[in-house]
């Protein structure tokens, strides 16, 4: 019902036109703004407040009751699998897993970018194949130089003398990696977009874009690893305080220093979290900003732990962070907006969203003219 409501009562043209002026500047710079805001880990209160829907309290009895005749939001989303259901556009307005009553001042969650297509599948598979191949292929025999610039100084400053402590930081970096990689799928896509906001379509698109970005950074990182073949910082200790039969010293593991995969994956995950939260306004202010900042905090900690664990040099970590961030934002941004971004219109306290291009004839001083929102 909520779905029908959203599509059956489009904003009047006059309202759309009124939003045209405000919508255009935002549209042309939305991607760049999102990127810059996210990288800086700042969420300007006025921007967040203007675009974020106010979550409806979970315990609100009015919000929790299914709409009359709705049969449930699921009926519009789930069909027998023999023929995958068409994507509901726009999706029902769902907050906290419940359809909201008519008149709720919240926009439905709608995927407004190019859908995951054949090219994206190719990129994802190629990235995954590259990742796998790089894991199998040994780094080239000619090893690149060791520390550069301030690498050695930073290592000396951060490296604990105790091997046991170094292992703890390495373990902690594994936890950071795990969180950073799983969060975009399990929490943002599955729990937040699908369950909390009720949009299976957005959840799927988000997850696929996340897959693409992670596969891509995996391929890039793996290939760089093999080609650069840089020795890890602890490599100097092999045969010393690290026995030569330690897994770290055997094989080719210790020639995979540049650039840090943990850091790259963690920053890719953080960028994806930020992008989705800030563009989709998944939770509303201030929680989208908190999610973004938290993701970057985890990523930054992961990179730092790799340094303290003596597994990477500073240059490895910085390169991983930079490339991870670039890939994490570039992949979703390259799914260009499919239709004009939402024109947020404020009228009598309600927020309405223009999701389609609209053209209409309007009276002018000398007759009629054509005006539209594109």
């Amino acid at each position, binding site marked *: 019902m909520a779905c029908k409501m959203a599509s059956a009562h489009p904003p009047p043209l006059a309202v759309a036109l009124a939003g045209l002026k405000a919508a255009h500047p935002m549209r042309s710079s939305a991607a760049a703004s999102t990127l810059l805001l996210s990288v800086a880990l700042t969420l300007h209160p006025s921007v967040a407040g203007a675009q974020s829907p106010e979550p409806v309290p*979970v*315990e609100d009895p009015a919000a929790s009751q*299914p709409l009359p005749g709705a049969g*449930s939001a*699921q009926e519009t*989303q*789930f069909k*027998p*699998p023999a023929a995958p259901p068409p994507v509901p556009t726009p999706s029902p307005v*769902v907050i*906290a*897993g*419940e359809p909201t009553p008519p008149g709720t001042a919240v926009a439905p969650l709608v995927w407004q970018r190019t859908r995951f297509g054949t090219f994206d599948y190719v990129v994802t598979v190629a990235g*995954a194949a590259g*990742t*796998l191949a*790089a894991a199998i292929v040994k780094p080239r025999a000619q090893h690149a130089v060791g520390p550069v610039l301030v690498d050695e100084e930073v290592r000396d400053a951060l490296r604990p003398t105790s*091997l*046991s402590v170094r*292992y*703890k930081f390495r*373990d*902690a970096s*594994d*936890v950071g*990696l*795990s*969180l950073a990689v*799983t*969060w975009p799928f*399990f*929490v943002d896509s*599955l*729990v937040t977009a*699908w*369950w909390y906001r009720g949009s*299976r379509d957005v959840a*799927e698109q988000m*997850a*696929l874009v996340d*897959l693409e970005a*992670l*596969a891509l950074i*995996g391929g890039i*990182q*793996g290939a760089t*690893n093999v080609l650069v073949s840089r020795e890890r910082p602890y490599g100097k200790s092999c045969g010393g305080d*690290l*026995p030569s*039969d*330690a*897994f*770290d010293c*055997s094989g080719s*593991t210790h020639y*995979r220093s540049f650039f*840090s*995969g*943990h850091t790259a*994956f963690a920053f890719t995950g953080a960028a994806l979290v930020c992008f989705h939260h800030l563009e989709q306004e998944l939770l509303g202010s201030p929680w989208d900003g908190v999610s973004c900042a938290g993701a970057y905090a985890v990523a930054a900690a992961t990179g730092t732990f790799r340094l303290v664990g003596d597994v990477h040099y500073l240059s490895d970590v910085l390169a991983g962070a930079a490339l991870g961030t670039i890939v994490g934002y570039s992949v979703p941004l390259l799914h260009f907006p499919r239709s004009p971004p939402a024109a947020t219109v404020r009228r009598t306290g309600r927020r309405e969203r223009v999701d389609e291009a609209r053209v209409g004839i309007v009276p002018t001083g000398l007759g009629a003219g054509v005006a539209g929102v594109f």
Partner: protein
Amino acid sequence: MRAPRLACLAFVALVALALSPRVAHAQAAAPAPADSAAPAGPHPDFDPNPPLGIFPTSSDALIDPRMARSWGAAPTRWFAATTFDIGFVYGRPRLSLGYGKPFTKWVGIDVNPIAASSGVGGYGGLRLEMAFFDLRVGSRYWFPFNRAYLDPRDSYDRLELERDFGQKGITLTHEAELDVSIPAGPGNILLRGSASYVTGVPDDKLVFESALHVIVDPPFVWRARAGYAVRFGKYSQHSMGLVGDVLHVPARDDSITVRAGPIVRVVLSRRVDVRGSFVTTVISPDRIGLVGGDFTELGVRYRWATEP
């Protein structure tokens, strides 16, 4: 760096599998967390005679915020069911064959292969699940990719687990485990007791037991867990709490390991829930870091079962 990359790749593959239309759409009736997460009373939308079938219906969605369906609703019968856990980075599909109400009250057998970044293995055994307890008796085989048997020592550090001593630490563990969940106040008291009998280890060696996450001097390991989880959510379907573990290895100078940490479960429907746990070591004779903890971090569980 190879391991994390492979781990990421494996994880991506698992997620891709989960996202594939066939998996995302095709389901049969199945599980809710031991239906301990079932709503206290019938939901207003609940249909007492639902059109149960192999595929989801409007009243049985993959993600169902209303929690309108429960595994306990279908009649007692013979059934086959699966539980599929994925996380970073592991995949653990389980097959259950039994009689009763799947994931709720049933008796039968459990079989599951185990695939993780550190090795592969499998488990098979008998299972009896009732309203407030869950009993498992079975055997688990484990083949580690790297970790080897260990020479006897009073204490081990992480490096002992990260060296190639030659003979891989393969184990066959026979185990009985009883889980109890008792409603109390706004949540449940969680109790677990288990007895493990580790075999396949040379006489003069110890081994890192992969499921218990503890270094064992065979054969016996006793384990006890206690905790409390508060329920929350519109239908009290979610839970969050703290648990503490105590493990005792008699043959290893009566060594005691204590672990504690948070657990959380967000139930998205009777089929799907997201789980997280971080039960890390507090007291131990060893210094093996987080590998000595019992945590899944973040994972997803998907359930399926045949319907009448």
